[in-house]
C-alpha cells in the first residue's frame, strides 16, 4: 500500500520535484562554485580571512531555496487533492486515514530530506579541498537550519492546504510564517548548533498538526 501511495504521489508531483530539486541543487552548486571562484580571484587568504573575521557562511544565496521548494512541494502535492476533491476519495480507501495522509507526507518529507542530504554532501565535497574542517563544519552548521526550514515549511504548508476552513487556513498560515521565521534568525556560523535539536524536534512534531486539518476535513467543516 505504501509503495502504491508513493507511486501515486510520484506520478502527481514528479515534474515539480525534479525541477525544484534541480533548482535547489543548482543553487547549492553555484554557492560552492562561488566560494571556489572567490578563492581563485580574491585569493584563498582573503577568503579564509572573511570566514574567520566575519563568521559568515558566504552561501546565503541558498538560504530560502529549501523553504521555497518545501512550500511548493506541499502545494503541488496537496492543492490538487483539495481542488479536485480527490482527498475525499483517498480517505475512503480501506486503510487508516492517518496512515494514508502520513504516507503522502512521508513521500514529500523523504524527497526533501534526500535533497537536503545531497546538497550538504555537495557542499562538503566541493569545499573539502580548499577549506579546513573547522570552516566547512561552520558552513554546514549554518545551512542545516535552512534545510530543516524546507522540511518544516513543507509540513506547515500541508497543514494549511488541507485545512478546509478559510479563516482557520489564514490563521494557520500566519502562525506557520512565525514558526518558519525562527529558522532564519541569524547568519552567524554555528549560532544554531546548541539548539538545533529544538528545531529538529519542532520540525518532526509539526507533522502532527496535519491531523487537526484532517480532522476538520473529515468532520465536513467548511466555510
Amino acid at each position: 500500500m505504501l509503495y502504491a501511495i508513493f507511486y501515486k504521489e510520484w506520478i502527481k508531483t514528479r515534474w515539480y520535484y525534479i525541477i525544484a530539486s534541480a533548482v535547489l541543487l543548482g543553487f547549492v552548486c553555484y554557492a560552492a562554485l562561488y566560494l571556489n571562484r572567490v578563492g581563485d580571484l580574491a585569493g584563498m587568504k582573503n577568503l579564509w580571512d572573511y570566514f574567520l573575521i566575519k563568521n559568515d557562511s558566504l552561501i546565503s544565496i541558498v538560504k530560502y531555496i529549501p523553504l521555497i521548494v518545501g512550500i511548493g512541494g506541499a502545494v503541488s502535492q496537496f492543492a490538487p487533492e483539495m481542488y479536485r476533491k480527490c482527498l475525499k476519495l483517498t480517505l475512503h480507501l480501506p486503510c487508516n486515514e492517518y496512515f494514508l495522509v502520513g504516507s503522502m507526507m512521508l513521500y514529500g518529507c523523504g524527497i526533501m530530506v534526500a535533497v537536503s542530504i545531497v546538497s550538504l554532501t555537495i557542499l562538503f565535497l566541493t569545499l573539502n579541498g580548499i577549506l579546513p574542517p573547522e570552516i566547512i563544519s561552520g558552513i554546514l552548521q549554518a545551512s542545516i537550519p535552512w534545510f530543516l526550514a524546507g522540511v518544516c515549511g513543507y509540513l506547515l504548508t500541508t497543514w494549511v492546504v488541507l485545512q478546509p476552513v478559510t479563516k482557520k487556513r489564514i490563521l494557520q498560515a500566519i502562525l506557520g510564517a512565525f514558526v518558519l521565521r525562527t529558522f532564519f534568525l541569524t547568519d552567524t556560523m554555528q549560532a544554531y548548533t546548541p539548539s538545533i535539536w529544538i528545531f529538529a524536534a519542532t520540525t518532526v512534531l509539526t507533522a502532527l498538526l496535519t491531523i487537526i486539518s484532517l480532522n476538520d476535513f473529515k468532520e465536513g467543516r467548511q466555510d
Partner: protein
Amino acid sequence: MVKFAKIYLWILVAAVCLWQLPSWWNFLTADASSTPFVLYSALADDFVIKKTVDGKSVCELSDGSRIARKEYDSLLPDYFCRQLASENRLPDTILGRAVSLKYLNDENLSMRIKPEQIFGPQIPLYQLMESQSGRVDLEMPDDVFRMTETGIEFVRKIDNTIDEEKSQMFTQAFDSAYFNFPALEIASNLSEKKKYDNGFLLVDARNRIFNMKMAKGKPVIEKIELPHGIVPRHCFVTEFAGRHTLGLFFDKDNYLYAITLPAKETKKVDIPPLNLEDDEVLIMGNIFSWTIRVKNDKQIAWYAVDSQDFKLKKTYAVDQEDSSVKGLTFIKNDWVRLGWR
C-alpha cells in the same frame, strides 16, 4: 492523536505570542532614552557627566551641579585634548605632569568587552601576526593555527596544507616554556589597524597564562607570573598606544586583572566581580585613571580606577529604567538559544 496535535498547536501559539507580543509592545512603547556619557576627571576628583535633558545637552558633576561646556572640556583635558589645543587652552602640565597633545592622545585608550565576545560562537582557528616584520603596518598572516590536545598546528591558507616545520618549531617552543596542552583559553586582538602586535594570551591546562608572539618568524613564548590562587578564565590582549598593559583577564570568580608592561606584573583591578554573561564593559583610560563602565539591563555603573595601581577611586551608578515587557527570546550572545528576557 487529535488531542496531542491540539496540545502541540497551543504550545506553538503560546510560544509565538510570548515571543512576538512583548517585542511589538516594547517596540511601540519604547522611550527615547540615552545613556549618559560619564568620565572620571582627575582634576575634579569626580565624575563629569554629559546627558540629554528635555532634548538639550547638559554637563554636570556627580552631585548634579551644572557646569558649562567649556568647563566640562577643561575638566577632561585628556579626552578633549584636541578641542582644548584648537582653542589654545591645553595646559602644559596636568596635576604636575608635563603633557603635550601627542602624549595625551597616545595615552588615551578605549576598549569594549561584550558578552558575545566571550561566549559567542567562534571558529577555533586563530591568526598569529608577525610582530617584528620591520613594516610600519601590520599584515594578516598567510596561515592560521589550531591548538590540538598535544601541540599547535599551522595551516597554510593558500593550499589548506599543514606547515609541519612551523608547527614543530612552535610546539617545541611551547614545550620549552612548560606549557601544558590543551589550551583552555586563546585570545588575541586580530586587526591590521592596530599600531603594534602583542600576540596571544593563552591559558594552559594548569591554568597558567602565557604570552605567545612571533618575532621575525620565530616563536616567543613567555609565562606570565600570577599571584597565588588566581585561576584565569577569559583573556583580552590590549594593544593601546601607551604600551602600559599586555592584556586584561577575568578570573574564575569574574574579577578583573591587568597584566602591566614592561614588568608583566598582574594587578587586580579594584572593581566588583562582573556578570560576564550579561554585563557589557567599556574602558576609557588616560594618563591618570581608567573609567570602567559596566552596563546591564538593571544598572549602569562607572568605576574610576588609578591607571598605575588600578585602585578604586570613585564609583557612580544609575539604575536603568526597565519598563519593557519580558518575553521569549531566541538570541543570546550571538547564539540561537531559548531564553526569557
